[in-house]
């Protein structure tokens, strides 16, 4: 069944405490090449049947109203993934 993937990231100006914790842990494991980590969210919305334009539009609206908070987050990607 096809899925619609929605990616949400914290806004650039919002300090991401989780990313900050991760970037602190990486060098302890010997991964020294990474200067910054930002942690976001990936949602997978499964669709029974074909993904129509209307269903995709619903996913975009859901991404802006429920899946993300525009005060602190940006929806960076909405795409269809076929299995």
């Amino acid at each position: 069944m096809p899925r619609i993937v929605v990616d949400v990231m914290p806004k650039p100006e919002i300090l991401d405490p989780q990313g900050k914790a991760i970037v602190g842990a990486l060098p302890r494991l010997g991964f020294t090449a990474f200067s910054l980590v930002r942690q976001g969210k990936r949602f997978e919305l499964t669709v029974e049947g074909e993904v129509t334009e209307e269903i995709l539009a619903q996913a975009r609206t859901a991404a802006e109203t429920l899946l993300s908070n525009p005060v602190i987050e940006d929806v960076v990607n909405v795409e269809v993934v076929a299995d």
Partner: protein
Amino acid sequence: MSATELPLIGDYSTPSTALSGARIGVVTFPGTLDDRDATRAIRVAGAEAVSLWHADADLQNVDAVIIPGGFSYGDYLRAGAIARFAPMMDKIIDAANSDAKLPVLGICNGFQILTESHLLPGSMVKNDHLKFLCRDQVLRVENNTTAWTNQYAQGEEITIVLKNQDGQYVADEKTLDALEAEGRVAFSYVGWNPNGSRRNIAGITNEAGNVVGLMPHPEHAVEAGFGPDHTGTDGLGFFTSVLTHLVGGQK
């Protein structure tokens, strides 16, 4: 009093007729923790508490509403994000924005729900140190003209409990400037910023002063023997403030 409610401990003066007529709603969502304490605080202040279930769409003619703390829907997605779309929230949002300007207080998770509802600006993200924190916290009353703060003195310092993981208040610079310029910062942290909140903001109010949200918990500081240092009752003023507001005694 229902059989499930603990009796009040201590001696409380009999509230005046006008005050005792007030009915204050307390909303319960799946995962709410502090509705019982909020109910108790309302009764200690001398009013009648009315339980409001999130899935109902009837405000039962309450005179004010408290959205208590906890972890509604497990804080899944974002704190308050799913609770915000409950049928009861639609009613509360309409009533808060109506000409009647229903007084609404959001505590902790309730504050997060109010920002997700856009009744208050900004949002909360994880504490800057990433840990859950529980402590007695000193706050300064920055605005004593709201429905929920009129019994405090301007600049008064109070100590109530702070307990959360997602308590870092954030908003863009323009919003923060406007909040400060318009006197809409209701409470600020004193001595130490416990979560990285912008400009030490602990609580804010809307323009009309009927909607107030804060991260710390006044409802845990209303009875001697249970509050901060086992004696503190600094939170009681929230509840007496709204009763004073309802009988027309607002400053």
